[in-house]
């Protein structure tokens, strides 16, 4: 644990990626094997379940710090991170621990089942005895999310440097379900183990947004275009008569989409498809909002399956007849996919093909892109015909070319302090639109991004001076500022007070030239909801 805390301190002491990678590489070279496994697990979001709820954590930490609970809560709102707040308010210690990271994690896992009094004693003694960084790391392990400025990609790079194993191979090894409690470093990283690969997905290839004009991509004839579907990016794996569905977040979501069981019969073993899970009912693609009802559920009821059925809109094939075919050209992979699709497709099979399109000119492609909202897509994907299927986000062969966002002018009504690097700044905002009588502002969206640091600072200062009421970390402010809010999609919603759900709302511009009377109405927003055409 000492070495791990030192590592976090080192990573914390630099803003440069290379130095972070070097620090991690050094750690991976010398740390005990099981500590390495846990470090990989933690940095790839495979943390143990939280053994103590945060209410108890806050209560016990404020007791130990000898401050009232409300003062701890206020401090937490300002610090923006629970583990950091705990580490800060508890009296300082210069002690250090000899226990390993693995020991700590084993204790934390065991803690979950212990009686409350034992949990309290365990936390108190560790909080008291550990120094600042160890206490911070310890509390981070307890509170769960371990975001400390090290991405999984960065960690994989360091692991590759330390072991000499290729980054892409490591990315593949780290995919999927493995349990740091039971797997050894040897098994996870060093050994080749075929049996484990049954459920393993391939690392997703991700596209960058197109930066300038598509003309810069060269000759249009070298490219396929597809509509960019707004669902859940997924891999569907059929191996050994079993189905595995993986989301892009590396989550195994097979159980959430029972309709895909039909694919086990239809598709041959040794097939892996890449595509988008989309809601699809009565011949029409639904909105992302429809899909939301499926994402959150652990148990999918029959009623829900009927109400919001899904399909896989397949656009790529990564494995065919047990063979990894990612190195084949995209055009070749598409031939295989299209042939397969033609052979297996039926009216009821939840498998559709995402059609590729070819254009004579970029202008023609641009015209198709304009149609995106009508076909329920977010724009176009451009994929080079001869491109292999790469690992991770890479520039060059795949580009997303989204339609310009929808926009509306709204009034800032509430503000909340941010987290992480935005702690202690009011950066999370709620926006309202006028009701029919232009008397009241109805909340329609929250947005956190789109302003420059300078704009955030100046708005933060304004909010502090123009607060109307406080509700914990949230403040209502005098309606005064108008912002142009951009969003990708829009759909009717019963879950929102405004009756409308917007997708990826963000601040496009601070309209200092507009008064609140100039802001749009809710009715204006509803006018933007597209009328889908039959697919």
């Amino acid at each position, binding site marked *: 644990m000492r070495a791990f805390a030192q590592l976090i301190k080192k990573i914390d002491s630099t803003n440069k990626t290379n130095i972070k990678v070097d620090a991690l590489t050094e750690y991976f070279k010398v740390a005990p094997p099981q500590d390495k496994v846990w470090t990989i697990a933690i940095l790839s979001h495979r943390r143990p379940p939280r053994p103590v709820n945060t209410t108890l954590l806050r209560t016990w930490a404020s007791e130990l710090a000898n401050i009232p609970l409300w003062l701890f809560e206020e401090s937490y709102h300002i610090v923006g991170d629970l583990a950091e707040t705990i580490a800060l308010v508890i009296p300082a210690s210069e002690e250090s621990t000899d226990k390993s990271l693995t020991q700590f994690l084993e204790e934390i896992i065991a803690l979950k089942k212990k009686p409350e009094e034992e949990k309290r004693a365990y936390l108190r003694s560790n909080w008291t005895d550990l120094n600042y960084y160890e206490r911070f790391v310890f509390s981070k392990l307890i509170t769960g999310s371990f975001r400390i*400025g090290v991405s999984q990609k960065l960690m994989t790079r360091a692991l590759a440097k330390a072991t000499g194993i290729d980054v892409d191979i490591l990315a593949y090894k780290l995919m999927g379900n493995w349990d740091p409690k039971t797997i050894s470093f040897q098994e996870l990283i060093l050994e080749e183990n075929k049996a484990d690969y049954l459920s393993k997905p391939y690392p997703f290839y991700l596209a960058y947004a197109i930066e300038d004009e598509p003309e810069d991509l060269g000759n249009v004839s070298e490219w396929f275009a597809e509509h960019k579907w707004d669902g859940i990016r997924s891999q569907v794996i059929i191996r050994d008569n079993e189905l595995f569905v993986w989301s892009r977040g590396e989550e195994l979501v097979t159980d959430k989409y029972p309709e895909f069981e039909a694919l086990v019969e239809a598709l041959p073993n040794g097939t892996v498809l890449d595509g988008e899970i989309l809601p699809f009912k009565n011949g029409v693609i639904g909105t992302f909002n429809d899909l939301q009802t499926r994402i959150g559920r652990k148990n999918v009821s029959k009623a829900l399956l009927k109400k919001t059925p899904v399909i896989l809109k397949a656009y790529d094939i990564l494995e065919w007849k047990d063979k990894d075919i990612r190195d084949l050209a995209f055009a070749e992979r598409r031939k295989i996919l299209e042939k397969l699709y033609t052979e297996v497709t039926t009216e009821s099979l939840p498998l559709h093909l995402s059609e590729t399109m070819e254009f004579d000119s970029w202008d023609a492609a641009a015209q198709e892109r304009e149609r995106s909202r009508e076909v329920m897509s977010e724009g176009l994907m451009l994929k080079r015909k001869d491109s292999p299927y790469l690992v991770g986000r890479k520039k060059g062969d795949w580009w997303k070319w989204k339609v310009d966002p929808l926009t509306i002018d709204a009034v800032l009504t509430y503000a909340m302090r941010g987290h992480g690097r935005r702690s202690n700044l009011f950066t999370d905002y709620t926006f309202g639109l006028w009701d029919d009588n232009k008397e009241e502002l109805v909340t329609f969206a929250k947005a956190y991004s789109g302003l420059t640091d300078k704009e955030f600072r100046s708005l933060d200062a304004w909010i502090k001076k123009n607060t109307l009421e406080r509700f914990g970390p949230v403040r209502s402010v005098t309606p005064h500022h108008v912002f142009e809010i951009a969003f990708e999609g829009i759909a009717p919603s019963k879950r929102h007070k405004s009756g409308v759900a917007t997708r990826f709302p963000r601040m496009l511009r601070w309209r200092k030239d507009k008064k609140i009377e100039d802001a749009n109405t809710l009715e204006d927003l509803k006018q933007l909801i597209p009328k889908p055409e039959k697919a």
Partner: protein
Amino acid sequence: MYLDPWKPVDKAIISHGHADHSRWGHKAYITHHINVPIIKHRLGEINVTGKEWGETFTIKNVKFSLHPAGHIIGSSQIRVEHKGEVWVFTGDYKTEDDGVATPYEPIKCHTFITECTFGLPAFKWRPQSEVFNDINTWWSDNKAEGKTSVIFGYSLGKAQRLLRYLDTDIGKIYTHGAIENMTEVIRPLSPMPETTRVTRETKKEELLGNIVVAPPSAHGSTWIRKMVPYVTASASGWMAFRGARRRRAIDKGFILSDHCDWQGLLESVEATGAEKIISTHGYTDIFTRYLLEQGYDARTEATQYEGELGEETEKEQE
């Protein structure tokens, strides 16, 4: 008579030289004599009278005197007495003796008007000797890697505190123009080590292994980009928060403040013996609520003072 007023007035008593406390445009200024050359440097030719520590002066039956606040060099608390009722206005202050500013003295009073820039239990300062030990270790580690160290601290106060304790056995100290100009004003008031101004002619090779002290506003400027390879650090109370350091995209944060930490504020309040506590700037609502729970008659008063955040973003006039 006004204390640290933010609108132009006839007569102002000024606690210290930071821009949110000493504004331009008053007809007459009264301040501690150490602060006189400092505010003259910042505000130009003004009508200013310097006072000694504890020297009393009476205006319309109200007795005034200045007492050390320990915030930066020349900073005072302002004691105001009328018919036996004593109020103390702190301006900004800290309880630790930093060796540059005249150390803070608690003043007995009935009403204590205090800042609380860092009025949260999350702020707990370590003794500055430990912090400077860390800073000098950081500098020599960077030197070993052949890099230039760049440390940010605002030009009046923090910069001179850094200069005083940087270990010149490690290397040479270079300064940004804004800091060099202010330090020239302070040299006759307090001993400072030898420094070299970074100019257009300064070659980046001569900076390697040495340290550059710069105001926070220099971060990300073209001025600093010339210094590659360099490592950045900031010395500020805000560095207690990991998010604050990351937001500023600084490599290393040293927690070093010219304001009181939580404990320092509570101890100061207690030492004054005051019953009424008025908080002027910082986490005033939180601090006041806590004091109320502790049995004080506490309230907040809205001001335009900005504390350390203001100092960090303060426009460098030089």
